């Protein structure tokens, strides 16, 4: 007896050219030099990273670049215990919202060099960069963040960023 066929697998592939725009391009070029570049809104003074070239709240262009620290705090995080296709690292790992010093919006990145059960909201962290000759215009220039060992930031100082 032949096997019933209900469906077939048809893999699809999509390669595309992504035009990032001028402000994100400056951010990406900064990463290629080991720097993190944000932009300040001329109206509300909030600092965006990555910059999008405009403030989503005020609707005005952002033109003032701001050099940001590569240190910050973990506002909140997730311990990922489930493997998935295309994952950058092997589970379990911690993905964290990192609010860089001087920025008003957190970045999402990997947190390592710490046991998953020791990660805390408010933990001080710093970027670990790839070696200089491997820097590229991509977030992959930062391998991950790791704890600095400084005292945790108080909840009040980042509760507006959750």
């Amino acid at each position, binding site marked *: 007896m032949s096997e019933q066929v*209900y*469906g077939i697998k*048809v893999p*699809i592939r999509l390669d595309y050219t*992504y035009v*990032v725009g001028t402000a*994100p391009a400056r*951010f*990406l070029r900064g990463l290629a030099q080991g720097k993190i570049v944000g932009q300040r809104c001329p109206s*509300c003074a*909030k*600092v*965006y990273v*990555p910059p999008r070239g405009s*403030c*989503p*709240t005020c609707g005005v262009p952002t033109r003032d670049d701001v050099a940001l620290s590569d240190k910050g705090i973990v*506002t*909140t*995080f*997730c*311990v*990922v*215990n*489930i493997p*998935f*296709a*295309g*994952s*950058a*690292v092997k*589970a379990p*790992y911690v*993905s*964290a*919202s990192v609010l860089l010093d001087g920025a*008003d*919006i957190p*970045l*999402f*990145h*990997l947190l390592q060099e710490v046991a*998953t059960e020791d990660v805390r*909201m408010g933990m001080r962290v710093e970027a670990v960069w790839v070696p200089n000759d491997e820097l590229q*215009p*991509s*977030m*992959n220039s930062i391998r991950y963040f790791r704890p600095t060992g400084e005292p945790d930031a108080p*909840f009040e100082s980042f*509760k*507006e*960023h*959750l």
Partner: protein
Amino acid sequence: MANPCAIAGIGQTRHASQRADVSIAGLVREAALRALEDAALTFADIDAVVIGKAPDMFEGVMMPELMLADALGAAGKPMLRVHTAGSVGGSTALVAASLVQAGIHERVLTVAFEKQSESDAMWALAPKIPFQPTVVAGAGGYFAPHIRAYIRRSGAPLDIGMRVALKDRLNALRNPYAHLHQEDITLEQIAQSPMLWDPIRYAETCPSSDGACAMVLVSEQAARSAPHRPAWVHASAMRSEPTMFAGRDQVNPRAGQECAAAVYHQAGITDPRREIDAAEIYVPFSWYEPMWMENLGFAPEGTGWRMTLEGATAFDGDLPVNPSGGVLSSNPIGASGMLRFAEAAMQVRGQAGEHQVDGAKRALGHAYGGGSQFFAMWIVGSEKP
């Protein structure tokens, strides 16, 4: 002032992890034919078709509405596709309702679906873009940090999420269409299920379902010839906000608060907890029940978890939430929002069978999508407004 809009027909599929017995076209027809039968109409009576589903990248079928036009009887008629991520089932119903409310059409068929067995949502929701490493593992990876923030802000006991999961799975036992029917489920089993995206356990997440939902929305004139008592749209609203902005509150998003305020205002509701008899809200991860209780104004900020703990949201509570078993028991993503809207209408029609809330006169249907950035809601009632 908008014309009245009635829900004269409701249909849904049996939801399952894999409906290998039907193609996508077969799946949407199953729901559509049930809705038409409920309204005692045929495809020929329909003036327009409004269809919705979640991102095309899920099944890898681009613009599926093109290949579904014939299956849904749309030849020679207007056909619209709506897309607002996870909230799409709700916003699709609202776009369909607006065509009736505007007086443009008499009878509109609206359908939403997802066939997750043909899809890889986890892959589709873990995008590779130049600004972030591929560490956000699907929807769970995106929402888990916000749940952690809610727990920290509210001081909620850590077992609240498990209690919601247990309640919704027990409710699902009353719903013959629900995907999950876990007869012997216990709090202990849920506690022992693997921690996927800490703090979200496996048993606190929605399943991955194949399914569809459909409704026939009609004018006051057309409602007169409907064989069964219709539900009436008392209020409807949609709100959006940017995915990211400084100071964005992802635990209690402003767009959700404003959308809720808009529907209460339209329906003349000042005390939603008292005046709404049942709510079908979009809870894909169990902790979103207490979070949305606050966002929807049923509980003051920081206290939504008390409603779960005290049993207020249980089937026999003062505000039954997700008597159908909700998204935690069936999640055909694109259809999940429409199922909330349809289940709310079933309650006020007295059509919900074993999961009927006694004497429900007014119910809320709610959906959200994207990074909690799209909200769609309606309030339906048993009486014409």
